[in-house]
């Protein structure tokens, strides 16, 4: 990995999130924000192992993933502001970011939902003999959902080119993993499905990358998928919103301190010389300032947007020319008049 690029990605995500937190009290951002501060390294490490054409599916906490996968920063800020220039034309918000050209599929506000979508996409790639792979991101909360286990089973059954990434930040909203699962050994569970499962405890961007790169290389060389990684990480801010919540009672600041001492953004920056680091930071700050200005200066969607894109806007097919003969049903005479079940078969 190019350390300068890694630092740029990590720093850029951190600063975008800090700017969102700064702007949030102004009420210009009309969207619940689930900030990625503290969790940047997982997205950056994984996306460094992906290539253009590869696909990621994320969650409502996916600002980091969107940016790491190459999502458009200006369109992201505009989406936060509810502007028509947003990545979803102001109709998605923070929880439903999307950038199809970048390979970042739309995210869901319902926990666990995109896991099966990622598996389906990977199956589609395999069916169409496309050379790309899919990464499916979800949190430790999603592993409580039945759809997670259904997805593991089907992904393994069909050996799809997919990497599962569980970002385990220890909490489903405010409920710790230990209050949701008696025996907290996720990799054992996943391994029981026959899927190679690895737990990465360090939070280290380079270690995560090394593991995921190996899996990505294996998939690209034709080895059967999927692979599973449990990446421990830590959410610094409250579940939703711009604030700290260490006074809320469900977790302690002491618990966070080890993770803050292990801040991957700062540690990556320390690997660069001062001039190199400053160059990266100045470029990122300028890009963010321009993106915020773009969002501020963009228009809200017009009234016609309200009912646009409910369905595809397309010309209807012409009317059929069938003349109803007033049949009352029954088994009929059978003179070449197939029953409906045969008609459905024929339609397939």
């Amino acid at each position, binding site marked *: 990995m190019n350390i300068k690029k890694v630092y740029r990605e990590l720093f850029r995500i951190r600063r975008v999130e800090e700017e969102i937190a700064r702007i949030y009290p102004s009420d210009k951002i009309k969207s619940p924000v689930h900030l990625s501060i503290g969790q940047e390294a997982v997205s950056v490490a994984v996306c460094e192992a992906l290539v253009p054409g590869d696909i990621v599916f994320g969650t409502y906490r996916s600002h980091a993933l969107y940016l790491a996968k190459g999502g458009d920063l200006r369109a992201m800020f505009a989406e936060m502001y509810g502007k028509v220039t947003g990545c979803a034309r102001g109709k998605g918000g923070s929880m439903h970011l*999307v950038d199809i050209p970048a390979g970042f599929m739309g995210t869901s506000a319902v926990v666990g*939902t995109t896991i099966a979508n990622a598996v389906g996409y990977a199956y589609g*790639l395999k069916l*169409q003999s496309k050379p790309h792979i899919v990464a499916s991101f979800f949190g430790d909360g999603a592993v409580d959902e039945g*759809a997670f286990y259904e997805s593991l089973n089907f992904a393994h059954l069909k050996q799809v080119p997919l990497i599962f990434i569980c970002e385990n930040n220890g909490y489903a909203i405010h409920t710790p993993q230990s209050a949701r699962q008696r025996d907290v050994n996720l990799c054992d569970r996943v391994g029981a499905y026959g899927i190679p499962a690895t737990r990465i405890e360090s939070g280290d961007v380079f270690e995560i990358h090394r593991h995921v790169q190996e899996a990505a290389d294996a998939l690209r060389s034709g080895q059967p998928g999927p692979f599973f990684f449990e990446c421990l990480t830590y959410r610094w801010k409250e579940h939703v919103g711009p604030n700290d919540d260490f006074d809320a009672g469900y977790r302690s600041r002491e618990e966070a301190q080890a993770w803050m001492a292990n801040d991957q953004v700062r540690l990556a920056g320390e690997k660069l010389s001062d001039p190199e680091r400053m160059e990266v930071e100045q470029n990122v700050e300028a890009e963010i300032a321009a993106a915020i200005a773009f969002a501020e200066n963009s228009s809200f969607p017009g009234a016609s947007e309200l009912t646009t894109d409910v369905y595809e806007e397309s010309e209807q097919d012409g009317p059929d020319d069938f003349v109803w003969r007033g049949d009352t049903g*029954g088994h009929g005479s059978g003179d070449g008049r197939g*029953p409906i079940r045969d*008609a459905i078969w024929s339609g*397939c």
Partner: protein
Amino acid sequence: MGADPSVMLFGLDVDDHKAIIGTTRGLVEKYGRERVFGTPLSEDAMTGVAIGAALSGIRPIHVHIRMDFLMLAMNQLVNVAAKSRYMFGGQESLPMVVRAMIGKSWGQGAQHSQSLYSFFMHVPGLKVVAPTTPYDAKGCLISAIRDNDPVMYVEHRLLHYQKGPVPTEPFTVPAGKARITNAGDDVTLVGISYMQVECLRASKYLLETGISAEVIDPIWLNPLDIDTIAESVRKTGRLLVVDNDWLSCGAGAEIITQVLEQVPDRHIQVGRMGFAQCTCPPAPSLEELFYPNARTVAARAFDLVRDNAVTWIPEERADLQEVEFKGPF
């Protein structure tokens, strides 16, 4: 599937010896196990898989041998399939078909008999079609497969045995067009799904009394061709919607409301028939009462036309007997 290699079909038991009442017979042999396969019993995730596959360029057909099983898939259908085009600003397109069957008779009971299409009619972003003839079954299915939005394709188990003309070549029946299946002047009968057959039979019973019923098959429940129904009601002044579902918040309520909004005539008489407001019982004596049938539909239409002045219910006629579903399934 022959015309478009991106079409894929899967679901519980689509590849077994019964082949979903024959509707999927031979497809594995013809198109291979990668495009046609039986699935694990995972309705939730498999619906998510269909969505993901659609995003990747596939046109999936997901088959459910009972509509009731779709309750396990509502998150993916309502929260994802219906909303993706809109909430992603038009960037995502989900060409997928969900085939769902409604059961009836031979003791199908509580969880093998539900229609539930009104759930899907309620949600913007889904299309819903419930064809009742072989012609429409084929034409609507091909329309649904070619559609770039998710389509709920509702099949009634008894209708699988209905016969009628159907071309062998591919053709489409466009979304949002109803069909007048029997012309008449005195009352408009809208029969949904299997109740279309009962309405056509009812129209024959009504002929005995000199009442001429216009029967309409909406075919597509969303988009709904309310214009064709409203035009008929302008002529007849009476509308009876016979639904294959419960009445409250159902398709009948929707159709009648839209007609009354469009035809501002306070003299129009309306009525609804459908399931009794209870869970479907398997006991034949109760199941008989649970569903409308041609005779009760005819009686209700007669009441509408004659202003409840006299009551009448036709004698059962052998030539208009119901098609019997011979179990076990």
